[in-house]
């Protein structure tokens, strides 16, 4: 099987100037990108001010990967993300307000306060897996969802994301291998942001690219520039359609850089400054799409300003919603382990107050 490795990580040329989506979709895409970027920046600021509890895992600089691959999914397709992929979940449809309630440990968060930060998911609504820390533990689960589609004859596709560092874990190999044996409808995305916490690619795998590992599974491998959301989107769309057609999995490596530390507490002193400057200047997926849409005349500067105003308002609404949402009631801590206690199928108590 052919391995289509595109070795370029040069600045995005936005899919060669062609527009792979209708203009209104492109504008919506810009909105999501802007929203996610702004969210990421504001949450980090709140974290630094000590106003946000728990942890944050910034996805800044990698929005092109998240938005690009998720955009190509249908509503019934499922997404299996990691801690880093909140932007993908927002793209899939999660409600910013409830996401923020989750960060503040409130009952209206997607996990009803049982988990925090991007350890989030909304299977019933938007078909996203509730993130677990252990890496890349959702990969094998995605095999199962894809298996179900195949067995039931449903035209759905599962798409799983993990980081570069996660590819060195055994689960990664098992899941891809098993899906390839049975030609399951699944797309394997690696968000290669060049670091696993502080560990660089060179200490994670011994070859130049992750995409070329696809030959070990007899599936196509594609390497795309995460700074070019449309390039990512097109690669994902092809892989998803391939999967939907019954032709099995594809491995997509989307290259970007983690602009911030691993989590809020990490100043990332290990990050070479030149690399960071390069990526911020040349591979910014948000600015790249904005510039492209401006150049193409799809949006005007005024449109962009209006978009930003909308984004800021959405964030403020989310923030207010989150802080107004009550904490879970202490007595609920032991509910919802077993299906039969009914906790998850009834409304939770809302008398937990808003002060912890």
């Amino acid at each position, binding site marked *: 099987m052919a391995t289509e490795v595109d070795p370029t990580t040069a600045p995005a040329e936005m899919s060669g100037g062609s527009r792979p989506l209708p203009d209104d979709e492109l504008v919506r895409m810009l909105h999501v990108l802007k929203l996610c970027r702004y969210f990421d920046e504001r949450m980090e600021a709140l974290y630094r001010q000590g106003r946000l509890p728990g942890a944050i895992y910034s996805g800044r600089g990698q929005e092109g990967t998240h938005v690009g691959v998720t955009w190509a999914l249908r509503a019934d397709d499922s997404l299996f993300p990691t801690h880093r992929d909140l932007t993908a979940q927002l793209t899939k449809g999660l409600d910013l307000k409830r996401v923020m309630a989750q960060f503040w440990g409130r009952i209206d968060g*997607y996990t009803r306060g049982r988990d925090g930060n991007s350890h989030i998911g909304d299977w019933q609504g938007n078909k996203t897996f*509730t993130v677990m820390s252990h890496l890349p533990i959702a990969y094998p689960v995605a095999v199962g969802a894809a298996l179900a589609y195949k*067995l039931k004859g449903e035209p759905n596709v599962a798409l799983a994301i993990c980081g570069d560092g996660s590819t060195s874990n055994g689960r990664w190999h098992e899941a891809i291998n098993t899906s390839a044996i049975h030609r399951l409808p699944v797309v394997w995305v690696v968000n290669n942001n060049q670091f696993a916490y502080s560990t660089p690619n060179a200490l994670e795998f011994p070859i130049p690219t992750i995409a070329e590992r696809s030959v070990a599974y007899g599936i196509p491998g594609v390497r795309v520039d995460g700074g070019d959301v449309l390039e990512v989107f097109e690669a994902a769309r092809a892989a998803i359609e391939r999967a939907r057609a019954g032709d099995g999995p594809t491995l997509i490596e989307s290259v970007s850089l983690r602009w911030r530390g691993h989590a809020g507490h990490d100043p990332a002193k290990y990050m070479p400054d030149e690399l960071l400057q390069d990526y911020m200047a040349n591979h910014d997926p948000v600015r790249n799409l904005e510039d492209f849409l401006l150049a193409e005349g799809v949006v005007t500067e005024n449109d962009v300003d209006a978009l930003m105003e909308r984004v800021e308002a959405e964030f403020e609404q989310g923030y207010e919603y989150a802080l107004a949402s009550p904490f879970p009631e202490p007595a609920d801590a032991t509910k919802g382990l077993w299906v039969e206690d009914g906790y998850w199928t009834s409304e939770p108590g809302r008398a937990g107050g808003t002060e912890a």
Partner: protein
Amino acid sequence: MATTVKLDAGAAGHGAEPRGKRDDDGQATYLIAIAEALWEEMERDERVYMLGEDIGAYGGAFKVTEGFLDRFGSGRVIDTPIAEETIVGMAVGSAMEGLRPVAEFQYADFMSSGFDSIATVLGRYHYRSGVPLPVVLRGPSGGYVRASSFHSVNPEPWFAYGGGIKIVAPAFPADAKGLMKSAVRDDNPVLYLEHKWIYRRIKETVPTDPDFLVPIGEAAVKREGTDVSIITSGALVHKSLEAAENLAQRGVSAEVVDLRTIVPIDEETVLNSIAKTSRALVVSESYRFVGIGAEVGATIAEKAFEHLDAPVTRLSPPNMPVPFSPTLEDAFLPQVADIERAVEELSAW
């Protein structure tokens, strides 16, 4: 599925419906009872499917799934690679999409190879997300078969600790059938342990009602007694019953409580028995340290304190690997004589 390689269906006589494999008098072994339950549930509900290593053409290492491939096809009887984490992941993901997987582990020992996906994903997903995971993991556990440390494990504590997974460990064919059917119909994850020493050794009349269920979470008093309560499960139910019979001839009356379900434990039945006998011997094949015996012992000590006339006593293997040599395995695992001795000591207290 299209890509599944269809192999030879096996020898003549194989492939028959499990109920056809009962004895002439209609009795079923424990193994056949389990196979019947799986067969009937697959007939009843097409969302139920099986996956595991060598369960298809080969019919499973212990032949529990013999004949299933022919009847249900390779889309519902799936041979997997040797990738236990992924077997569990497949079960979880497909359960999220509405299927009801039953995953076989070739030995319960190899559940350790799927540990993270079992303990972390299967056990913790519903509490955090509200998504039900109707998954059954099953496999042969336990010793007494000269199979040494890698084919004799009782893994309950690994998966009992942390919660979210029900655990059943039947000792009798009828219980095995009724509990398997309950497990498949349960909307929670269930770990179903089949004791390999019992597989072909114990048989009895087993109900044929397709809706015969033994509820998860209920222990059973398998022998009434007045002097000492033996709380046990699995192969040790049979050894305890043998000990109780011997003890009766010496005038000691032992009650034998078969836990049947390990998570959640039926505290009521256990405590009722202690209220009656005032003496508790916890006999467990799981290693002594933080084994099931520790949990049962601590629970009795805490909740039946006023009834106890003697210390709650544990009889369990030492906390180390099960050895191979017959002299070692016999010394290592609780034997009928050990149970008798412990009961006598307790009743003399």
